[in-house]
């Protein structure tokens, strides 16, 4: 009898937990679901009153408008997609190579002043981007990178956050493994490329995911450093499409564009989810 009551108690609290979680999922998913549904609404459903959450007649009208109708008079939307892809891919590639080399130097080779430098890097985790924006603008200006794609790539590469994550993961590789390879005549470059990188694949896969998301969604960078519309990336194109709060005329094209902007990050994260969580598990954040 007693056991039975206890079982019931556990079940009741479990049910409550699942109800809570499902309610939470509704809250987190609602705008995303609405975004998908809006992107596939035909024109008349976008302006209907009362507003419709789901579409009853899915159509590709908005995508057609985005890719064809708007092509003739302004910059083609595909151009923004291309710009975003170039910027993100270059940033991600640079980040992974530069940060993993830096992390390798700080963990597996004894670098003079390494500890001090690492502490400095950890301290800068607290800096938010806006704090350094003004000065970054001047640095970029002096490097003659203003209004070029480089301005969106180069400053983002040496991210403290990625170096920190990678360094923590590299630290878990047993030194004996590297010592053995060293005795076999392996060079430092060999240690880095043939042992450290293959062993820590989840860690740099995570750096790829996180730096891709950050670069893909970056709004202030292009807003400040890029003046020429042709060189803008997706978030700025979205802002142009939006026009003003509650503008209905372009609502369809905006929803389609917003969906195209949002999907890649979610797909990339989905594909790498277990690796990402694994990396944090082994990062021994301390």
């Amino acid at each position: 009898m007693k056991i039975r009551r206890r079982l019931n108690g556990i079940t009741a609290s479990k049910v409550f937990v699942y109800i809570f979680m499902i309610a939470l999922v509704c809250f987190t998913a609602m705008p995303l679901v609405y975004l998908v549904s809006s992107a596939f609404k035909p024109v008349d459903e976008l302006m209907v009153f009362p507003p419709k959450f789901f579409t009853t007649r899915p159509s590709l009208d908005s995508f057609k408008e985005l890719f064809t109708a708007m092509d003739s008079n302004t910059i083609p939307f595909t151009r923004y997609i291309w710009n975003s892809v170039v910027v993100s891919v270059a940033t991600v590639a640079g980040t992974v190579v530069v940060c993993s080399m830096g992390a390798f130097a700080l963990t597996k080779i004894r670098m003079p002043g390494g500890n001090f430098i690492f502490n400095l890097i950890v301290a800068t985790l607290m800096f938010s981007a806006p704090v350094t924006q003004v000065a970054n603008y001047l640095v970029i200006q002096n490097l003659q990178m203003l209004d070029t794609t480089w301005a969106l790539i180069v400053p983002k590469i040496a991210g403290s956050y990625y170096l920190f994550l990678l360094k923590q993961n590299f630290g878990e590789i047993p030194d004996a493994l590297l010592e053995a390879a060293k005795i076999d005549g392996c060079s430092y470059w060999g240690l880095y490329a043939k042992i450290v990188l293959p062993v820590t694949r989840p860690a740099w896969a995570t750096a790829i995911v996180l730096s891709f998301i950050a670069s893909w969604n970056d709004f202030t960078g292009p807003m400040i450093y890029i003046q020429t519309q042709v060189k803008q990336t997706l978030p700025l194109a979205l802002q142009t499409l939006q026009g003003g709060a509650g503008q209905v005329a372009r609502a369809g094209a905006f929803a389609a564009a917003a969906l195209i902007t949002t999907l890649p990050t979610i797909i990339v994260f989905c594909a790498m989810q277990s690796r990402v969580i694994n990396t944090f598990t082994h990062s021994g954040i301390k």
Partner: protein
Amino acid sequence: MSKKRKFKDREGLVAVLFFIPFGILFLLFTILPVVISLVLSFTNYSVLQSPIWVSIDNYNYLFTQDDLFLVALKNTLTFAMFSGPIGYVMSFLVAWVINSIHFKKFFSLMFYAPSITSGLAMSVVWLYFFSPDRYGFINNFLLQAGLIDTPILWTQDPSKIVAVVVIVSVWMGMGNGFLAFLAGFQNMDAEVYEAARIDGIRNKFQELIYITVPMMKPMLLFGAINTISGSFGVYEIPMTLAGSPGPENATLTLVGHLNDYAFTRMDLGYGSAIAVILFAMTFLVGRIVFKVLGSKDE
């Protein structure tokens, strides 16, 4: 001895070579900008002419003459005070719950998804929910339910805007630290809980307070730092929802004020002073968090 010494020197050289790419970029785009901001904040500088040293005039002006700065400061603190802690606590509790239920992958993805979306895109989507007319979902719902007679001016009435910005910021920022928290829970040793049970820990909640939280201090610190810098840097969301400065300056934040001075009026000295204040705030709160969560016992 001399041979060993030589080997070590070579090792140092190799390390430096590996570190140089990161070092240079880090110096150029993280360390140097902080120094430049500090110096420029004491000057009058507008790109066209070289900086003129004005001592603490900028700061003086900020706190005594610039009413908009004080409004921006107040707005930023208000937004941060709500969205930061709410998002942080939610993130921790949800990671705790997810760790002990089924469908972990699904729930983690659904909870984290908003954090990886474009702030601009999703702020606009939220506008359809909080639209100040009858077309807004929330107004429409409340009208049909008979709870209100006229649409609520969510993004036009300054007293409502705070709530809207906080809801959207929490929605988008809950994932800050979530991955670290989730990993922390996965790393917890089951034996610790068993030992605790023998020592008189009775329920899950006591476990959380007395065992889990102290053991997860590093993750809590990591998450807190992400949350602090994110909360004080609030700009994109209020700007998209109601414009910057917005109705009656209700959505003017420090970053908005900074962008206005530095990049619209090209007054980089004054903009730098605002940046330094923002930096000081982040640093101060960061220090406090370090004091509370920094683990001395390790």
